[in-house]
């Protein structure tokens, strides 16, 4: 019972961390502050994956999002602003209509989530998932796996092609 309470406290802590830092990402005036708040959002989402028993996915989230996409976004911020431009403000517009629309979306989604009687199938046990995921990739999902690798290759070549300096 005590263990359960502790789990709940930790869950609500990470839920608050995720949503709170996502709010900072959206509302912060400074771009750099947004990027670093995004770090905490990704970290909180990884913790939620760990709560859901998805250990491999939590590690993947940390490696790819925090190690890859976040660094890429930081590069994007640094390369598209002059270095002496210290305040790096991001302008906002249509804030009030956006708040109305977003609150509408949120309450619609939350209302349906709370009203729907979700199919409660067998709850999967908390076991290490890495081996099972690898097996599924090599057996049932071999075609999507290969297609995803080709997609990554195309994205790699395409991104390099777009940003290369044209020499004419």
């Amino acid at each position, binding site marked *: 019972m005590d263990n359960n309470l502790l789990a709940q406290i930790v869950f609500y802590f990470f839920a608050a961390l995720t949503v709170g830092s996502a709010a900072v990402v959206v509302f912060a005036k400074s771009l750099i502050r947004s990027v670093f708040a995004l770090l905490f959002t990704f970290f909180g989402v990884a913790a939620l994956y760990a709560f859901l028993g998805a250990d491999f996915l939590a590690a993947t989230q940390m490696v790819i999002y925090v190690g890859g996409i976040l660094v890429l976004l930081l590069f994007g911020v640094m390369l598209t602003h002059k270095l002496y431009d210290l305040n790096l403000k991001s302008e906002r517009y249509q804030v009030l209509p956006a708040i109305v629309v*977003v609150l509408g979306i949120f309450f619609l989604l939350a209302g349906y989530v709370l009203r729907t009687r979700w199919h409660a199938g067998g709850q999967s046990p908390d076991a290490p998932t890495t081996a099972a995921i690898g097996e599924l990739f090599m057996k049932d999902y071999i075609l999507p796996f290969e297609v995803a690798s080709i997609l990554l290759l*195309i994205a790699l070549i395409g991104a390099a092609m777009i940003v290369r300096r044209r020499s004419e």
Partner: protein
Amino acid sequence: MIGLSHYLIISAALFSLGIMGVLTRKNAVNVLMGVELILNSANINLVAFSKYSSGNISGQIFAIFIIVVAAAEAAVALAIVLSMYRIIKTVNLDRADTLKG
């Protein structure tokens, strides 16, 4: 007890905040951050349904594919942002109106 709906509510909040970022920001990199929030919220949904509703881990496989697509999307989108910066010297999305009549 923490159930499926807790995760779905968190995911709905992340999704709404992502939409908010996409709608209100003028900086292209900031809009990209909103898109990443939306993709993460979809991932939380998939993994939560995978645990509480399906009883197997196919949802996690789908989440991994979403992460792959998100990585590809971030790389290509930042390439586009960089080349936009090179051409019109700003990442303000309002200024990218060359095609406007």
